[in-house]
C-alpha cells in the first residue's frame, strides 16, 4: 500500500476494527515502557540503601507514578476497552461499526499526545513524584514547583477526555446498533461488560476532571481549593479523586469479567451459567462502586458511623463478585474442559483474582485498614486484582480471539511457556508483599530496614521472571505475526475442535453462541453491512 493509503487507513481511520488494532499496538508499546519502569522499582528495592537510584527519592517517586499511570491509563484501559471493546462489541451486536465512527478516531488519537505529556512530565525538571493519586498538598506548587505536575494533570485530562468520548460511543452503540432481533437479554456478556464500563466512565470521569482542574487552579491561579492556609481542604481532593477512582478499578476489571465469561464458556463448551445473574452482578457492582469510595480514606479521620457505612458497603460488593466467581465455576462444572492456554489464563484469573478480592475484604475493615493503609499489603492487594486479574484477562482474550482477529495462529507451546513463566513470576513478586505489608513496610518509600531484605529480594527475583515472561509474550506475538499462517490452525482447533469426549455439535470452526464466530477469519472490515438477523 502506498504511503497515502496507509495514512488514509491508519491515521484517519473510522473503522472500529482498525482503531482497535491501533489501540492494541499502543497498549503493547505503553506496557513495555511500564514494565521497564517496574524493573527500575524492583532493582531499587532489591536491597537496602537505595542500590539503583543512589538515594534519589524523588526519582523513585517519579518512576512509581509513571509506572502506575502508564499501566492503568495507557495499557489496561486501551487494551481492554479500546482494543477488545472496539473490535468485539460491534461484532457481538451484529453492528457494522461503532455508532460514532469519527469520534472513535478522536478517542484514539487523543491518547497519543496524552502519553507524550506523561512521559514529558517524568523527564522535565524533577518530574512528578506525586504517586498516581496526585494528592494535594504534595502535588501543590510548594512541593512540586516545576511544570511536571501540570503536564501530568494535562495528560490525565486528555486521556480522561478520550475515555469519555469512547464511553459515549459505546453506550450509544449498545443501545442503537443491536442487530434485528437482538433483545437486551440476548446481548453477549462481553458487550454488557463494556456497557457497564462505559457507564462507570461517564459518571465518574467528570468528577476527576473537576478535581484535577481545581488542582491546576491552585497551582497556577492562586485559588485555594485544597490549601488550608486559604480556607481550602485537602481532604476534598481525596473525596473527588476517589469518587472516580473506585469506579475506575471496576472499569479496569469489568471488561476482564466479560472476557473471562466468554473464555470459560468456550473452554467448557457450555453456555455461561446464570447469564442473568452475571448481568445483574455487574449492574450492582457498578452501582455499589459509586457508594464505597471512602474505603480508601479510612486513615484521614472520618467519624465512626461513616467508617461503619463504608466498611459494610464495601463488604457487600463481595457478594455480586462472588456470584460471578461461582457462576464461572458452575460453568466449568460438568463441562469437558480443554486445558489450552486460554483455559490456563482463565483459571489463573479466577484463582488469583479471588485472592485479591479476599485481601480487599480485609482492607475493607476500617479498623484493620488503619495499620494496613499505605503499606505493601495494599500494593499486594491491587496487584493481585490488576496484574493477575486485569492483565491475565487481557492475555486470556488475546489467546482466545487473536487467531480470529488476525487470521494468524500463535505457537501453542510457546504460549504455555508464557503462561507458566508469568504465573510463577507474578506470584513470586507479589505474594511476599503481603508479608512485607503485615510487617509494616510502607509503600512509596525507596529504602527499608534490613529486616525486610529477605522478602524484597524474593519479590525482585519474581519481577525478573515476569519480565522474561513478557519478553516471551512479545516473541509469541512476533512469531504469530510473521509465521502465523504456518502454525496450522492449531490455536483455533485447540479452542473449538470437538474433543474426543466433547459434543459434536461444534462442527468445524465452531460457531459459538456469539456472533463474532460466525463471520470470516479474519473478519472483513465491514462485517455486517447487511444486518445479521437473529432468531
Amino acid at each position, binding site marked *: 500500500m502506498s504511503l497515502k493509503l496507509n495514512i488514509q487507513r491508519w491515521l484517519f481511520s473510522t473503522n472500529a476494527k482498525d482503531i482497535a488494532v491501533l489501540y492494541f499496538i499502543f497498549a503493547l508499546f505503553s506496557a513495555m515502557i511500564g514494565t521497564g519502569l517496574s524493573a527500575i522499582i524492583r532493582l531499587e528495592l532489591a536491597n537496602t540503601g537505595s542500590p539503583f537510584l543512589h538515594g534519589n527519592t524523588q526519582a523513585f517517586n517519579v518512576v512509581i507514578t509513571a509506572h502506575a499511570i502508564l499501566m492503568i491509563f495507557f495499557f489496561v484501559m486501551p487494551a481492554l476497552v479500546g482494543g477488545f471493546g472496539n473490535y468485539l462489541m460491534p461484532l457481538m451486536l451484529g453492528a457494522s461499526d461503532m455508532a460514532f465512527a469519527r469520534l472513535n478516531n478522536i478517542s484514539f488519537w487523543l491518547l497519543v499526545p496524552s502519553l507524550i505529556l506523561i512521559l514529558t512530565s517524568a523527564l522535565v525538571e524533577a518530574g512528578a513524584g506525586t504517586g498516581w493519586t496526585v494528592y494535594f498538598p504534595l502535588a501543590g506548587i510548594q512541593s512540586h514547583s516545576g511544570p511536571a505536575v501540570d503536564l501530568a494533570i494535562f495528560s490525565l485530562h486528555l486521556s480522561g477526555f478520550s475515555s469519555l468520548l469512547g464511553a459515549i460511543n459505546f453506550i450509544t452503540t449498545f443501545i442503537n446498533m443491536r442487530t434485528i432481533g437482538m433483545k437486551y*437479554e440476548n446481548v453477549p456478556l462481553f458487550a454488557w461488560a463494556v456497557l457497564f464500563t462505559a457507564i462507570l466512565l461517564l459518571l465518574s470521569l467528570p468528577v476527576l476532571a473537576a478535581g484535577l482542574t481545581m488542582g491546576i487552579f491552585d497551582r497556577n491561579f492562586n485559588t485555594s481549593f485544597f490549601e488550608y492556609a486559604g480556607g481550602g481542604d485537602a481532604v476534598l481532593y481525596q473525596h473527588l479523586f476517589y469518587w472516580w477512582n473506585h469506579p475506575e478499578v471496576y472499569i479496569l476489571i469489568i471488561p476482564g469479567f466479560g472476557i473471562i465469561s466468554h473464555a470459560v464458556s468456550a473452554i467448557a463448551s457450555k453456555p455461561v451459567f446464570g447469564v442473568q445473574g452475571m448481568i445483574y452482578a455487574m449492574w450492582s457492582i457498578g452501582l*455499589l462502586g459509586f457508594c464505597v469510595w471512602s474505603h480508601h480514606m479510612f486513615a484521614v479521620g472520618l467519624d465512626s*458511623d461513616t467508617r*461503619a*457505612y463504608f466498611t*459494610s*458497603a464495601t*463488604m457487600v460488593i463481595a457478594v455480586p463478585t462472588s456470584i460471578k466467581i461461582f457462576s464461572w465455576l*458452575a460453568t466449568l462444572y*460438568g463441562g469437558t474442559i480443554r486445558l489450552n492456554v486460554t483455559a490456563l489464563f482463565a483459571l489463573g484469573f479466577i484463582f488469583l483474582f479471588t485472592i485479591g478480592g479476599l485481601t480487599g475484604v480485609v482492607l475493607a475493615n476500617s479498623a484493620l485498614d488503619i495499620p494496613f493503609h499505605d503499606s505493601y499489603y495494599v500494593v499486594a492487594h491491587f496487584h493481585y486484582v490488576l496484574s493477575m486479574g486485569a492483565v491475565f484477562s487481557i492475555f486470556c482474550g488475546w489467546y482466545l480471539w487473536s487467531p480470529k482477529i488476525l487470521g494468524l495462529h500463535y505457537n501453542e507451546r510457546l504460549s504455555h511457556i508464557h503462561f507458566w513463566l508469568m504465573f510463577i513470576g507474578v506470584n513470586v513478586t507479589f505474594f511476599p508483599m503481603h508479608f512485607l505489608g503485615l510487617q509494616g513496610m510502607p509503600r512509596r518509600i525507596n529504602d527499608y530496614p534490613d529486616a525486610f531484605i529477605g522478602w524484597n529480594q524474593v519479590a525482585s527475583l519474581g519481577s525478573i521472571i515476569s519480565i522474561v515472561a513478557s519478553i516471551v509474550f512479545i516473541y509469541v506475538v512476533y512469531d504469530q505475526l510473521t509465521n502465523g499462517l504456518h502454525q496450522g490452525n492449531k490455536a483455533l482447533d485447540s479452542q473449538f475442535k470437538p474433543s474426543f469426549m466433547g459434543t459434536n455439535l461444534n462442527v468445524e470452526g465452531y460457531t459459538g453462541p456469539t456472533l463474532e464466530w460466525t463471520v470470516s477469519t479474519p473478519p472483513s472490515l465491514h462485517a455486517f453491512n447487511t444486518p445479521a438477523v437473529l432468531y
Partner: protein
Amino acid sequence: MLEQNKFKTKKQQQAWNKTLAGRYYNAMVKRPFLFFGLPFLTTIYAASVYFAEFTAYRYEIQDGKVKALSEEEALKLDKGRRKVDMKEEFYRLQQLGKQDDWEQVRVPRMKGESDNVF
C-alpha cells in the same frame, strides 16, 4: 448435577405453571428486569445501607470494651506501686553503680583492614 430442564408432560407443565415457583419463573422469563434484576439490585443496595447499622453497633461495643488510658491512669491500676517522683528518680539513677569503671577498648580489626594508625 446442575440439571434444570427435566422433561415434563403437558399436564405436569400445566400443574407446574400454577405453582408459585412456576408462576414466578414464567413472569421472570417475560420480564427479567422486573422480576429478577430489580429485586437483585434492591437487595444488594439495601443490604449495603442497612448492614452499616450492624457494623456501627459492633464498633460501639468494641469501643466500650477497649479504652485508651493515660500513663498516669495505667500506673494507678497497679495497687502496690512505689511512689514515683521524676526528680527523685533521676538522682537515684545517678547514684546507682560506679560511674567511671569503664575503659575505651580498641576493637580488633579484620584481616587486611586498614588500622588507620598513622
